[in-house]
């Protein structure tokens, strides 16, 4: 048991909750709901892995976790700037959407464990392997960071395939960039959810129709060479995992980024706890094999 002596704050240690102001260099409207904010590093040397997140907020509106949408490693911006893609869903995110170039966003981070692209962490690493990216909806945001990082070092990886599902053809994110990704040697299969009867959000869409799991069975996959990455809305995971198992991909080779409510980002507030782990510390990126015996993980 600790006596108070062991837990005295180390001198110089500071509040975990104090954010830093970052200048918004650019705001790009991607869709009606999503905007991409480019944040200047203001001389701070942020280093991060794809899949990590920042807590970003505005005084009076609170803060929330947002994934890093930029690439790292060779794909990182030389000036340390990075992007967050924010979907307007509520109080804070709508307030952030009202910000313009030159305004300030308050951030803390980066937090969490991201993707182990280089194999430096206990995750097995992704170099030399075929990579299957499975993104649903806003899940394309952290996936973009990962894709850019991997494309920045294209020769180190095998075949790259993106399966990206969304609800509404007008809601496709990064459609323009996707052409560049394809040109750099990544296959991209886009699919729109089947519209509910009576609704027709297809809006002239000529591509594949159906949830992402309807695309996976048709893919040619070498299970011993492939790492699959799933990021999407909570409902997507179980079905996507099942279709990967049908392709004989091992639990160790399936990576997931899990969304949880997060209030502190530093492993204290308890909201993101899944079994014995904190999604903000040991995650949000996990290998499926790490999530055994956790009834509420997926």
């Amino acid at each position, binding site marked *: 048991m600790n006596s108070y002596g062991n837990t005295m704050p180390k001198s110089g240690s500071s509040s975990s909750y104090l954010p830093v102001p970052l200048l918004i260099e650019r705001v790009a409207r991607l869709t009606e709901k999503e905007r991409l904010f480019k944040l200047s590093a203001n001389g701070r040397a942020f280093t991060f892995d794809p899949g990590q997140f920042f807590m970003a907020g505005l005084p*009076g509106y609170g803060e929330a976790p947002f994934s890093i949408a930029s690439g790292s490693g060779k794909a990182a911006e030389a000036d340390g700037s990075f992007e967050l893609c924010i979907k307007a869903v509520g109080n804070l995110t709508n307030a952030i959407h009202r910000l313009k170039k030159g305004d300030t966003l308050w951030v803390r981070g980066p937090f969490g464990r991201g993707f182990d692209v280089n194999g430096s962490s206990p995750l097995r690493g992704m170099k030399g392997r075929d990579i299957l990216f499975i993104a649903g909806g806003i899940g394309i945001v952290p996936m973009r960071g990962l894709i850019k990082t991997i494309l920045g070092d294209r020769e180190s990886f095998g075949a790259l395939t993106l399966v990206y599902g969304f609800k509404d053809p007008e809601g496709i994110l990064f459609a323009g960039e996707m052409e560049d990704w394809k040109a750099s040697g990544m296959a991209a299969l886009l699919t729109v959810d089947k519209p509910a009867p009576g609704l027709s959000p297809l809006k002239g869409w000529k591509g594949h129709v159906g949830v992402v799991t309807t695309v996976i069975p048709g893919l040619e996959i070498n299970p011993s060479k492939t790492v699959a990455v799933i990021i999407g809305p909570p409902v997507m995971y179980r079905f996507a995992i099942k279709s990967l198992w049908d392709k004989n991909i091992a639990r160790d080779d399936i990576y997931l980024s899990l969304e949880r409510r997060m209030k502190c980002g530093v492993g204290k507030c*308890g909201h993101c706890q899944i079994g014995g782990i904190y999604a903000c510390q040991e995650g949000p990126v996990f290998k499926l094999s790490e999530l055994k015996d956790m009834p509420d993980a997926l």
Partner: protein
Amino acid sequence: MEKFSFLSNKEFRKLVEGLTGSFTVYGTVRKDARLSAAGDGFPAYGRISCFEDLVLGLTPTHLSAKEFLFPQRETLLKFDIEKMTHAAVVEAVDQVIIGLHPCDIHAVGLMDRVFAYGKPDVNYLARRAKTVIIGTDCMPDRFCFCKSVDTMNVDAGFDIFLHRVKGVEPPQGAGPPQNGFLVRTATDRGKTILSKYAKAKKASLKQLDEIAAFEKKREDSFTAHIDAPAGQLPEIYSKSDESPVWERIGAICYGCGSCNNVCPTCYCFDVKDEMKSNLNEGERVRVWDGCTLEDFAKVTGGHNFRRTRSDRLRHRFNRKFNYLTGRFGALFCVGCGRCSRTCLVQINISEVTNELIREYNAKKRQ
């Protein structure tokens, strides 16, 4: 060997009065006399401004002492929107908490680990560093089960610990028996405080016998218990996800969060912004949250990772006996019985645990 010395009631009064003169003092009191059945109030913690306020109870308080280290509402930041400033707020005053029982002292030790782990939480730790803890002995009621989770005794985590003694004849054999306490200290700070404000004498063998007899009686008085060794509970809980127990208690639970509030080791919190009426200045505050509350694990889009009350109780119980043990090296239930005592529908944590143990053993025999 622990060193005991004797503090007469008179000297104890001097100690408390000395402390109230120099520190913010909290301690055990009796509250709401009119509402309590016996008319003498409920055991609770409160501000002690004079010696008479302090009532050292033998049974646990309804709420724990965690609010003095981890307040129910706490300012983390102050901000000014026009001036574009954020300032960290770390508030800590020299304070003393008197009357913690061994389970509560163990609970503070667990909170210390939680807030020191990883990136240290300066708000908690600054307050903790300035907090003097004075513990006292106790007697179990029908909910207490510290004996089953190895938190019945403490030899660290407090500054001063008080064992009640009575009936010691004064030297001349005249006058009333001299009641008081055998005291032990676990820190230099405790020693300093004790010698600064009061005069302790050498403990007599008779007094030592008296507290040994009291401790024996205490040990024999437990009616609530857990029917498996404490070290086995993480394993038992980890095999209990499919137990019908969760459905059953989930069906009666109100999801009120009282069990989280009263628990000395429940530390989850929410963070939110509060604006002043000038709509310019405001504070980012943290407030207690509870994993039994409906929205606790809900994310944007409405998905709730623990939708049912059964899910949420399974989570809370596992946090006490399984989920946190790996990270912090201890059970997170100290057996104070507060959650069982407070629960409106009599969900009793030791009984629920025993049910899981029975199921576990039955499965093993199969």
